[in-house]
């Protein structure tokens, strides 16, 4: 946001001429070389929360150029590979979109011609945002443009509701001071008074400002067990990289502890899983290459294994406890032994340029389903033979999958929809290995006027688990900040509930006395939303920050992503744990959790 004050200066200096030391050739017959582009601005991709495309001048994620100037985007400050991809740009802009086909460390130097807003992202980590505003010095206000084109092919007026939402989200995502901090009484998104030129009209950026009260509330009915949440942006003393795993006791809804990974410099922990005894937590480092294994109770690290670029999710196969780690900047899922020291056994190829993200294994252990972020497909892998069937879905950045308890149907969230649908879930017949249909998550939303005429209002869907009774698909939608609930009987959105900016992770946990809670975590907020699945209502909001912990240096409780509620609700997994009950194989704590479950929750 330092940039914001600079933007005003940039506009005031509108008449300022180009750099004095640009191309010198051409004036001189002796020099026959022609200089290449000289970057007038640089965005360095980093692992730093909010500053994923960082301007080295002031640390902001936005640079302002004049037409004909160039910017360089480079990846010299990150531990993994990315793509540099245009998310939106002024329709008709020359040489656009920029899109790197597969993840790498390659830089891009790009000249900008048409005035307007250009937003870049990474298809592997699609909330990494950086922007270039090309401002024509002769127009009033900072040029946003007339018509913006989205990577999905859709063109929207720059004054449309969706464009404004994207603009506000850009500022919130890339400005940690604008994240929703529930330890404060209100959320104040106050944007400065910068004149923007949108479709020829001058509008102040401050028009996008807003204030909302922050109200925490512990759910009246406790849960059973605990919930682990990846507070992926939390900064810890002694660590260069961001992220912790926060452990919440659902008995009193308080933070029990945080696994910080200081010695390992754990980098952006994204998603977790456990073994059937609930002894180990397996943790992926998404902006890195590693899988960490630590003790659930003591927090002691057992092992740290390099598994590949950008490991996103980890899950086990119920029947044999083998681990499956999705290599998000690769094209494989690594199959590993369980235990304290997982070791890679096999690499299961999911198809060329697939970049699998949030995968799922059927409770009968027969199939694994991967959403292939870069390939617009879903892969169904037969786990008995490790053979892969890739199903093209037409989805743009399929990011997460979950399935029904009987293993028949999977739901894949397409972050950028299935064109022309702006926002969608693709329904997959798992054993049949085919696409059944798309569910429109934003059927009741008008992207131009912003009018919402019903429950179907979910934009940019991410995690999308299916309830243990198979009745509902709960989806965290990051742009609309809503949780949509789809009825699996009708495949229609039956409910839309408010969540937080950057709503991301979702999963189910046990409610005391029977039934389930859905837990939803958000990247740019530090609360965990608890949804009562019997009522389809928000039952509470629980703080993920620990205000007494002096070693948290920034973003306390922020960055909510992967969620692991224990006991695991899926019966295919739970039954393996229940088999060990009463045999001295489980800790008294875990035995206590199992004893608190109803027969329905146990699946008997």
């Amino acid at each position, binding site marked *: 946001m330092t940039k914001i004050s600079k933007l005003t200066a940039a506009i005031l200096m509108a008449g300022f001429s180009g*750099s*004095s*030391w640009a191309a*010198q*050739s051409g004036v*001189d017959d*002796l*020099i*026959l*070389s*022609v*200089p*290449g*582009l*000289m*970057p*007038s*601005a*640089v965005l360095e991709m980093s692992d730093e929360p909010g500053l994923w495309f960082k*301007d*080295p*001048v*002031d640390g902001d994620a936005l640079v302002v150029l004049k037409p004909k100037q*160039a*910017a*360089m985007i*480079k*990846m*010299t*400050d990150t531990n993994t590979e990315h793509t540099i991809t245009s998310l939106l740009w002024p329709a008709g802009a020359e040489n656009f979109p920029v899109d*790197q*086909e597969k993840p*790498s*460390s*390659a*830089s*891009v*130097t790009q000249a900008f011609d048409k005035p307007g807003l250009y937003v870049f992202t990474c298809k592997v980590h699609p909330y990494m945002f950086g922007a270039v505003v090309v401002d024509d010095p002769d127009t009033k206000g900072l040029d946003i443009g007339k018509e913006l084109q989205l990577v999905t092919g859709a063109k929207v007026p720059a004054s449309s509701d969706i464009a404004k939402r994207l603009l506000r989200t850009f500022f919130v995502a890339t400005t940690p001071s604008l994240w929703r901090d529930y330890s404060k009484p209100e959320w104040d998104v106050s944007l400065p008074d910068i004149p923007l030129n949108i479709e020829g009209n001058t509008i102040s950026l401050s028009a996008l400002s807003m204030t909302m009260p922050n109200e925490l509330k512990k759910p009246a009915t406790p849960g059973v067990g605990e919930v682990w949440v990846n507070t992926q942006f939390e900064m810890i003393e002694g660590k260069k990289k961001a992220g912790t795993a926060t452990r919440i006791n659902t008995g009193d809804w308080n933070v029990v502890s945080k696994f910080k990974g200081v010695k390992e410099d754990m980098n952006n922990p994204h998603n977790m899983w456990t073994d059937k005894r609930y002894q180990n937590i397996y943790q992926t480092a998404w902006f890195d290459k590693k899988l960490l294994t630590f003790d659930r109770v003591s927090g002691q690290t057992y092992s740290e294994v390099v598994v590949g670029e950008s490991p996103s999710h980890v899950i086990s196969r119920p029947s044999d406890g083998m681990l499956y780690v999705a290599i998000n900047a690769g094209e494989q899922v690594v199959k590993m032994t369980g235990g304290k020291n997982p070791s890679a056994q096999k690499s299961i190829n999911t198809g060329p340029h697939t970049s699998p993200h949030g995968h799922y294994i059927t409770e009968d252990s027969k199939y694994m389903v991967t959403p292939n972020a870069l390939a617009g497909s879903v892969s169904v892998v037969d786990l008995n033979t490790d053979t892969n069937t890739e199903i093209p879905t037409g989805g743009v950045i399929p990011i997460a999958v979950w399935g029904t308890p009987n293993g028949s149907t999977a739901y894949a969230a397409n972050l950028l929809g299935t064109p022309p649908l702006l926002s969608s879930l693709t329904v997959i017949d798992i054993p049949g290995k085919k696409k059944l249909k798309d569910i429109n998550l934003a059927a009741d939303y008008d992207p131009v006027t912003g009018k919402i005429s019903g429950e179907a209002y979910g934009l940019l869907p991410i995690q999308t688990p299916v309830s243990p009774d198979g009745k509902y698909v709960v989806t965290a939608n990051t742009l609309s900040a809503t949780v949509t609930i789809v009825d699996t009987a009708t495949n229609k959105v039956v409910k839309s509930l408010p969540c937080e900016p950057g709503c991301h992770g979702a999963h189910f946990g046990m409610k005391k006395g029977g039934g389930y809670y859905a837990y939803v975590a958000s990247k740019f907020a530090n609360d965990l939303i608890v949804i009562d699945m019997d009522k389809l209502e928000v039952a509470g909001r629980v703080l993920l920050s620990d205000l007494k912990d002096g070693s948290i240096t920034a973003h306390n409780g922020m960055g909510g992503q992967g969620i692991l509620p224990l006991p695991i609700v899926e019966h295919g997994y739970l039954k393996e744990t229940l088999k060990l009950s009463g045999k001295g194989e489980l800790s008294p704590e875990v035995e206590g959790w199992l004893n608190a479950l109803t027969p329905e929750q146990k699946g008997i």
Partner: protein
Amino acid sequence: MTTKIAVLIFCVFTFTHMAQANTESGKTHLITMKAAKLDSGQLAYQMVTHKIRDASGQTEDITHQYSTEPTIPGPAIMMTEGDKAEVTLEQDIKGSNEPVSIHVHGVHYKMDSDGTMKVFNHTADQAAFPGKPYTYKWTAAPGTAGTWPYHDHAFGNPMLGAEDKGLYGTLIINPKGGKVSAMIDGQIKQVDLKDIKREFILWMHETTFWGMELNHLANRQVPLWTNPTIGAREDELVRFHVIGIGTAFHTFHLHGHRWIQPGTSHLVDTVNIGPIVREAFVIKAGEGVGPGNWHYHCHVLQHMQSGMMGGFRVIEN
């Protein structure tokens, strides 16, 4: 016996003294450079003054040959075997109090000119701070002829240098005899450096070439920035200096031309370039193939696909 030893000592002393006298040109390069921040936030070196003092004490000022702004790559410093240099660096990086240095490759220097920090060299900080320049002394001793990189070895955390941000440049040590071998018209010949009018410096960083031309016709260093088109007239002798920086490994390839690897008769048209690895070679532009827009690029497929390429424009005479 005593006499013999005395004679021996005398001889050794005289011989050593004479040997030194023979290898020294008597020329000292008095250089002041600064490290500065570009508008883009990248860092770069800039020449402030470059004077050459000869044995008689006369100085020639060649500062006008350099760009008047910081550039990536930084100024190309050209010396000859036998020359010495005193290079003073100023820290002029806006908004930073961090140390910045020059660590040079190839030439000889004493420990205090290493350009590293005390935490690594256990002696002293050999870096410039704002308002506190630091002077490095180099000797282009016999056998150091070649193209060498210099770069910062102090800026940033953990004080290992900001090569990635743009703090690097080229040091060219020409051989004392003034000649380099090259494959010209199908034969290995000794080319007189005076006959080379254009030199192209291409740094390979991640997926980008950063270029600079030393144009001896205009007596000027021309910054060429990213993935430039370099140009020469057909049949002109031109020298390339290709250097790697960063973490990536490259294969430099120039279309339509081939050259001998230095010190060998081995003919190549592609060369492996890892970080800080360099290759310098002389070719005759368009030899045997004629004029055209010849392509040059990194032959690592992914780098190529990311635009790591440019043109070598050979213009018909």
